[in-house]
């Protein structure tokens, strides 16, 4: 019984001096992994669902093309439009866009450029295939049809 009566001398405080450091470490992790969205997407983006998906391997080689109905239909109409970076472009401007994107890469990697097509489900194939023809013209042949993993299949 004497054991219980004894008061231990150890202090009951958890040292909190290192707490800021731990938080900072977490902070730096998230700061490094964060990619702030550079482009405002001006078109509707409901991506199609699919099962057989592959991951993109190298982010630096990827450029994005957004296709879909504009969000501001009163300004731009209801027809699906093509968006690259921050602006709407015509089909004929795609080649120039691809060449700009290729110029950002090393010479050795230019052929490996991958175009990620983020196309809204309500779009028709016409506009998509127009873009594809331009991509062939620009020799950017690796294409990824961006889609979401579907679960119910």
């Amino acid at each position, binding site marked *: 019984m004497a054991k219980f009566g004894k008061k231990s001398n150890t202090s009951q405080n958890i040292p909190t001096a290192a707490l800021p450091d731990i938080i900072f470490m977490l902070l730096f992790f998230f700061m490094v992994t964060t990619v702030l969205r550079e482009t405002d997407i001006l078109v509707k983006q409901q991506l199609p669902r699919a099962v057989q998906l592959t991951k993109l391997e190298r982010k630096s080689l990827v450029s994005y093309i957004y296709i879909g109905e504009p969000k501001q239909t009163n300004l731009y109409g209801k027809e699906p439009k093509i968006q690259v970076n921050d602006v709407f472009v015509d089909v004929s401007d795609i080649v120039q866009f691809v060449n700009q994107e290729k110029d950002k890469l090393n010479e050795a990697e230019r052929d490996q450029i991958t175009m990620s*097509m983020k196309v809204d*489900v309500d779009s028709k194939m016409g506009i998509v*295939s127009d873009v594809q023809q331009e991509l062939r013209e620009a020799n950017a042949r*690796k294409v990824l*049809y961006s889609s979401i993993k579907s679960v119910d299949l």
Partner: protein
Amino acid sequence: MARKNRPTAEIPNGSMADIAFLLLIFFLVTTTIATDKGIAMLLPPKPDPNQPPPEVTKNDRNIFKILANSQDKLLVEDEPLTDVFELKEMVKIFVLNFGNPGEEGVTIYNSLPSSMKSYISINGRRVDYSDDPTEAVVSFKADRGTSYELFVQVLDQINGAYNDIYGSRVGISASDFLQLDRDDPIQKRKYNNARQGIPRAISIAEPNKIGG
């Protein structure tokens, strides 16, 4: 003359953790751990204007034709098809038909695991399907009015059929096959073994200009 009682020049750091927390929460909220996934395809090279388009010398039975019109109706091997999800099995049977295998085809057939051989003897050997996997081509032609959703679904089905074939060749499932990491030499060998001899021959024709 220096003052005697200099106040201590310390910054209070009790709230440091709070500030860091605020920043942390900001980055937590703004982070989108980007998972960009999709169906990868390789477009054909652009046609050379000086060269006439290559003539199709393949036998008709070696081409699996999928057509989609502007009403999102499918025509598969000249028969209408209502359920797009049946395509996967059809493509699989078509590719693994071994109707009239050439020398390469026989080698591939002999290398297949026994489960696939029995699958072929049940479903395969049709006269109107492909000679062997090296010859088989899946051709998909959409209309300009076909919805993108259907296009992706059909591509997904075709790719699914091929991934199923590749996966079962090395004894893994299709999703495991997709996750093989080609930087790892062991997994790369597995990947190459699965792909060897059976090309993923998917041809996407230019869409019709007129709605049909």
